[in-house]
């Protein structure tokens, strides 16, 4: 029998029990849908993390106060204040293979410019920050070392903030005045746009001011929240981490028995943890996918066995007019395959829709890869063949005369 005939016969048989066929497909639909969705979310998250590492720079080292042991946070009293501005200059001066070191402290505040106002993140740092973060200025200029020393009331706006505070004129931002916590700042520049960090956080939603100004005028802190250090090359990162640790222990007068009152983290390691987390989620969804595919397969096997029993006389008649065992086998195999494949196609559609929905509603980064679509379809078809084989074999092994007499 030709494939076209086989497909038509299978399609007719499935249409005859349309409701039953759809219910049978449900397991496959959910399974394939889960395959597509999990892979879209997994690939998306991974790509986002990689993009983030890219935008932060793989050579970046972050120093935060407190001894943060693996996973847990154990902050002794006062350790939050352990990092000082002098530590930054010492690192830049004394640690070899450092391209730049910059402090970064952060607070949130309302920024007002004329009639417009915008709630955003205010960062305090030094000019070295543009090098360390590899983040140039698009318009105007960054503030200078001199302005840091003078605690000048100057600000550099992230592109999102600039657009929201000065929507009408693009050139209007530089030179304008903004008010942060009742302190007037002069805008000296606008940062280049970095875009989404990949997890829905807009990196351009920021205002950067001299660290000294932030400490004196906005937060009143004398310590810094973090120090960003960039190694000269990716290979230099471990050496820089070691030297920095030794230098800081020395500067903080820690005895051999005292633990670090800071922790040095390589940004690649931090992101590795996030990748691992997203991989766990992906694995979980993949597990659901496998389970539903197996359940779907058992459903198909069950329905095909019922179908073979119901159509025993038909099988007998087909054999009586010349169908060989393998013709019957093929007929039922194609039927199971059609059932699974149609379920697979519907599952792919639902999986893509779910992934897009997650991206739209929860702002998850999703990427529906062609590979996942192929994988989804192939696994559905495979389930059809594997679970359809036993019922088809049973049908093919029937004795013609016994089948014909079956009531």
């Amino acid at each position, binding site marked *: *029998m030709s494939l076209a*005939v086989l497909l038509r016969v299978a399609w*007719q048989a499935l249409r*005859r029990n349309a409701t039953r066929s759809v219910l049978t497909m449900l397991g496959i639909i959910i399974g394939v849908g889960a395959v597509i969705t999990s892979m879209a979310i997994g690939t998306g998250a991974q790509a986002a993390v990689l993009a983030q590492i890219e935008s932060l720079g793989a050579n970046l080292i972050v120093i935060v106060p407190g001894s943060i042991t693996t996973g847990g946070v154990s902050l002794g009293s006062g350790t939050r204040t352990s990092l000082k501005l002098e530590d930054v200059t010492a690192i830049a001066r004394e640690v070899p293979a450092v391209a730049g070191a910059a402090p970064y402290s952060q607070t949130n505040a309302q920024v007002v410019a004329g009639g417009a106002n915008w709630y955003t993140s205010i960062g305090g740092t030094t000019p070295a920050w543009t090098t360390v973060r590899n983040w140039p200025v698009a318009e105007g200029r960054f503030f200078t070392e001199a302005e840091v020393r003078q605690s000048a009331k100057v600000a550099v706006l992230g592109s999102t903030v600039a657009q929201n505070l000065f929507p009408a004129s693009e050139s209007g931002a530089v030179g304008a005045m903004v008010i942060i916590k009742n302190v007037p700042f002069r805008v000296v520049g606008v940062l280049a746009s970095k875009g989404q960090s990949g997890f829905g956080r807009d990196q351009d939603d920021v205002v950067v001011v001299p660290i000294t100004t932030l400490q004196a005028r906005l937060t009143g802190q004398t310590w810094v929240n973090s120090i960003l250090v960039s190694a000269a090359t990716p290979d230099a990162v471990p050496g820089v981490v070691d030297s920095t640790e030794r230098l800081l222990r020395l500067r903080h007068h820690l005895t051999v028995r005292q633990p670090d009152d800071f922790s040095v983290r390589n940004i690649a390691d931090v992101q590795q943890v996030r990748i691992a987390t997203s991989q766990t989620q992906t694995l979980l969804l993949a597990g659901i996918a496998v389970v539903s595919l197996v359940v779907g397969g058992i459903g198909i096997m069950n329905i095909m066995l019922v179908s073979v029993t119901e159509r025993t*006389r*038909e099988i007998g*008649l*087909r*054999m*009586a*007019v*010349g*169908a*060989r*065992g*393998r*013709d019957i086998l093929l007929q039922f195999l194609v039927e199971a395959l059609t059932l699974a494949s149609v379920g697979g196609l519907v599952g792919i559609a639902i999986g893509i829709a779910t992934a897009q929905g997650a991206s739209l509603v929860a702002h998850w980064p999703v990427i529906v890869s062609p590979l996942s679509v192929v994988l989804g379809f192939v696994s559905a078809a495979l389930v059809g063949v594997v679970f359809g084989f036993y019922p088809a074999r049973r049908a093919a092994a029937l*004795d*013609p*005369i016994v089948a*014909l007499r079956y009531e």
Partner: protein
Amino acid sequence: MQRPVLGNEWLIDVRDLTKVYGDGPTAVHALRGVSLRVRAGEFVAIMGPSGSGKSTFMHVLGCLDRPTSGSYRLAGEEVSRLSPDQLALARNTRIGFVFQSFNLLSRTTALENVELPMLYAGVPREERLRRARALLDQMGLGERADHRPSELSGGQQQRVAIARALANGAPLLMADEPTGNLDSTSSADILALFRWLNRERRITIVLVTHDVTIAAWSDRVVTFRDGLIIGDRPVEEAVPASVRAGVPSMAAARGVRA
């Protein structure tokens, strides 16, 4: 008197055929040593009481079932040595089987039912349709090709089944009580069709019946009892002349059919 027969070969040559269902004390000996020869072109009726083994015999002849012992040569070839696939091929191309209960696929049109054996023979679509339409036309069902079995009368359904049995040009037609579910008018119709196929198309027919008025249409009557053949006579000896008088002549029958 005997009609002249074409060729000397036996189309069907059965020797000492037995068929036992089950084993031990509950075993049923449905056939207990049956021997029968049929030439190409004959029209044989098989009669006998219920349970005498007629259907069992027909199933063996139709390659639907295997005998327990004995020899069955179909056109000179020993059937008991054939593989399952070869038996399927024999059912497909060499034997047409007609059942009492028609056995049509219920959700398929008359045309598709006739196409069925050709599907398994790998006949191309165009040829399939052409042959199926021609056969249905011959059966007087040209108008009903696209009807489903449920939309046809019993007689019409049986004619679709006969068209299906002839689809691959089988020279042998086996019919197990083909008129058992039909009224007398439809029965006469089917029997006239059988006789026409036998006389005009030279198709060999073996037909099982309980009814002597049906056996009267044949040329030769074989009688079964308890799994054995107890009689094998020409129709003129087996069926009384008064009954045979009820069978219309070829010309009259064709008149009816036209």
